[in-house]
């Protein structure tokens, strides 16, 4: 087959909603885009553990602590599912780590905001995980098999994350005045960055069209953002919290909420590395990786020694 007929065959698989698997022929750009998207997602899971790790030792009860630990462990797991999906495209794990550590690869900029009160654990679970689920559910049907299968696993586990966050917010909101204020304050700080998680407006998102065609993306940034706003505003009512947007209004004609302008300058500024915690997050991550080097080396040396011993015993027998 010529490259052109390979391309035609690939296009027809995509059009017929057939899943692409690792050994199938795929265009270079498809492979590159997938590696970028999947690894960015994996990096976000790994960096995403850090803002929450900040509160493990200070969780208000043993129950909250167990839940938070389980959630963070899930995030490590999600990162690992996704890295292994990316590896099926022919990149090594270490090269992906290098890209994260050198700042070449991005992760979700939401994790560059600080977690200053316990209510932030609630707001992150409710809003950040809520937005992530909105993004991820359509990806369970993405065209690349290993990615779609990883996303199915991730989505199954993620809904507990959102519920535990909502529960924290509800408890605080129905608690004392101080607790209620704490919940509202966290909501105020996390609302806008959560809306930014869906990425720039469609008009400024040049790759959207190609990605939708490839079924790497199944809904546009603006569609997902609107969907998130519509459901979350209703949830805020249950919590008894006020959405920090004075322009928020139900639009009968559109059947959606209208909302105020998003500060995209802030978004791009954080993406470029100037958010409140960019430097700290990356440094913490790099330190963890470098400090773990001797453990990885020792485990490898031990495995090799055991293998050699076994081989010798087999020879002697």
């Amino acid at each position, binding site marked *: 087959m010529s490259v052109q007929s390979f391309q035609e065959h690939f296009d027809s698989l995509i059009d017929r909603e057939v899943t692409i698997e690792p050994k*199938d022929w795929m265009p270079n750009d498809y492979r590159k885009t997938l590696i970028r998207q999947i690894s960015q997602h994996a990096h976000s899971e790994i960096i995403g553990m850090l803002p929450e790790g900040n509160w493990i030792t200070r969780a208000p009860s043993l129950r909250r602590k167990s839940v938070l630990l389980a959630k963070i462990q899930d995030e490590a797991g999600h990162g690992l599912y996704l890295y292994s999906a990316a590896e099926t495209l022919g990149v090594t794990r270490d090269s992906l780590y290098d890209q994260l550590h050198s700042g070449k690869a991005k992760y979700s900029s939401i994790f560059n905001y600080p977690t200053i009160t316990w209510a932030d654990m609630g707001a992150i679970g409710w809003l950040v995980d809520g937005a992530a689920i909105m993004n991820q559910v359509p990806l369970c049907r993405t065209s690349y098999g290993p990615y779609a*299968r990883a996303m199915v696993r991730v989505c199954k586990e993620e809904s507990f994350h959102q519920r535990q966050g909502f529960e924290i917010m509800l408890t605080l909101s129905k608690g004392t005045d101080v607790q209620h204020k704490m919940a509202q304050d966290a909501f105020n700080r996390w609302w806008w960055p959560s809306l930014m998680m869906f990425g720039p407006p469609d008009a400024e998102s040049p790759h959207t069209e190609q990605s939708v065609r490839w079924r790497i993306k199944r809904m546009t940034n603006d569609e997902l953002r609107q969907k998130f706003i519509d459901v979350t505003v209703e949830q805020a009512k249950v919590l008894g919290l006020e959405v920090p947007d004075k322009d928020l209004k139900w639009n009968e004609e559109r059947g959606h909420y209208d909302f105020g302008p998003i500060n995209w300058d802030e978004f791009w500024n954080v993406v470029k590395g100037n958010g409140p915690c960019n430097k700290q997050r990356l440094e913490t991550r790099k330190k963890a990786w470098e400090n773990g080097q001797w453990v990885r080396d020792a485990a490898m040396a*031990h495995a090799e020694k055991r*293998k050699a011993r076994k081989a010798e015993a087999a020879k002697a027998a």
Partner: protein
Amino acid sequence: MTQQNKNEWPLWEVFIRSKAGLDHKHAGSLHAADAQMAIENARDVYTRRMEGVSIWVVESKNIIASDPGEADSLYEPANDKIYRHPTFYNLPDEVKYM
């Protein structure tokens, strides 16, 4: 396809039996220094919610896979043998169960 990085732990494929009586099914892959660690890591990564009662791990480099480009010729022999399916045979209506 994947070039092995010198310092990187080898890659393992993980297969999980979700409950007694079912086949092991591919769950994903992970890195580990040896088989024992691969099993332990597989437990942490793929069975945090009791998804399995048994785990197999195989070093990825030992998996031999068929080539999707040769699928047509590989499966061709089965293509024209519809008589291997029970629906190929017409039974008289009187035969109620078979």
